[in-house]
């Protein structure tokens, strides 16, 4: 139910902004049957932006939306309107593609189960992304933590200082080229 609604809203977001409209319908139809093959394929070529409905029993979430960084705020707003709660924010360092991926997890408190993953990829050499603390106050620590580990600059964050790492830390341990 809410899954459908959120999915349509997210799709409309892509449509309205006219981002890669041509590719967008394809992944939607690509509802997975055997998760493994699809994943491997995606691993090889970077996945286009768009919403994919995932097999919950394999991946543990329902909607997987990859958005360009400038659409992130709008996408999170859609999720916020759907009364989702923020579960976590994290990053993944795709060093081969020279990209950093930021993953936002959202879930719901009621029994209308729907887990939404919003992910966005940014260039590795200039990692900047707008903050979502204006929408979800609880993103504050998650974003600080992601900055600690990946060196991603969350533009507009109210208090972007190291949280888990020491105050003077200038290293980012979860980058794949980090050497202790």
């Amino acid at each position, binding site marked *: 139910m809410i899954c459908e609604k959120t999915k349509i809203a997210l799709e409309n977001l892509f449509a309205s902004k006219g981002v890669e409209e041509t590719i967008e319908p394809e992944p939607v139809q690509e509802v997975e049957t055997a998760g*493994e093959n699809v994943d*491997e394929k995606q691993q090889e070529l970077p996945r286009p932006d768009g919403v994919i409905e995932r097999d919950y029993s394999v991946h543990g979430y329902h909607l997987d939306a990859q958005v360009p960084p400038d659409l992130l705020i709008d996408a999170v707003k859609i999720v916020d309107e759907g009364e989702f709660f923020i579960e976590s924010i994290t990053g993944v360092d795709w060093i081969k593609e020279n990209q950093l991926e930021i993953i936002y997890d959202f879930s719901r408190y009621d029994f209308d189960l729907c887990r939404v993953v919003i992910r966005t990829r940014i260039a590795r050499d200039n990692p900047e992304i707008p903050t979502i603390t204006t929408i979800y106050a609880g993103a504050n620590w998650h974003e600080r933590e992601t900055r600690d580990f990946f060196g991603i600059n969350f533009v507009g964050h109210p208090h972007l200082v190291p949280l888990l790492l020491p105050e003077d830390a200038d290293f980012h341990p979860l980058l794949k080229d980090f050497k202790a």
Partner: protein
Amino acid sequence: MNAPVETNAPIEIQPDETFILNVGPQHPATHGVLRVKMEMNGEYIVDAETVIGYIHRMHEKMGEIKTYPQFLMNLSRMDYLGALGYSHGHVLVVEKASAIEVPERAEYIRAIMVELNRIASHLFWFGAFVMDLGGFSPLMYALQDREHILDMLEAVTGSRLTYCYFRFGGVYNDIDDDFISAARKFIPRMRKSLKKYHKLVTGNIIFRKRLEGVAPLSKEICRKYGASSAVARGSGINFDVRKNEPYSVYPEFDFDIPVYHECDSMARYMVRMDEIEQSLRIVEQGLAKLPDGPVMPKKKPKIIKPPAGDYYQAVETARGSFGVRLVSDGDKIPYRLKLRSPTYSNMHLFDEACKGMMIMDALAFMGSLDLVIPEIDR
């Protein structure tokens, strides 16, 4: 003893009248190395900033340099009071990713163990919480009951806190008849103790006065911060991962999720106390339904290599919704392992919620969040 004073009453603050109070990193109420920088106006908190990271060990990096089985023991180090719940999340996500079948008996054993561990964790929390409020003896009574659980768990797993008991596909050791009879004996004993706790603590007028109406948390703030466990359920949110997105054998059990709508510290206390009873029910049913069979699958890949992809699994631990995100690239070590710890989110809302409270109430509120610092810092 009339209605409690309005503690969140707005107070006029002159800018030069406040002072900074550093609660922690070593402070009796923070249960570890947590620091809260409070800007105080007399006894009232004007502003607070939680500083964490004093016991940060970078488990996520360890996850990226160790193979899957080698990382198993790290999960018990995250939260030393409810370790099994965390291991459960980890093994579930790896099993899901690499499609390992788990024998039914192993699933039941896991559920029983996790619930016993949850009771142990809640008991310790109960004792520590009452001690935060100045009552000493309940801690000792709670520890006595917890000791029985630890003895049972030790007899099966070989360890008292850092169990490292779950394996991909099953559990390390089968449980024996001694354990079953000990657990059966424990259930009525615990119920009797619960009655004692309610008489000694819950009914106590001093205790009620300290908690009722104190530190209200709205549903909205819970949602914005992603609170879970008793923090959410005490604010009238019926959210428990065991019910909302059933995993393992939890759909087989008949249990309730206690939800209180008062939103105050008392509600959070009552939720946890009721959860002990619900966990006892699960253990009872689990012992009755326990099927025979092996505890490890016959077919299991020698080296665990989940296919490339992105997997997520949430479980309900003693402290709330714990999530593991596994990004695999098909290798024998994970590409990325994100551990979403529940107290991290629960603690986060402290900064906003404690504004305008008195320091006593704020620390009682902090106690009601059920903090385990290594679990926040990971």
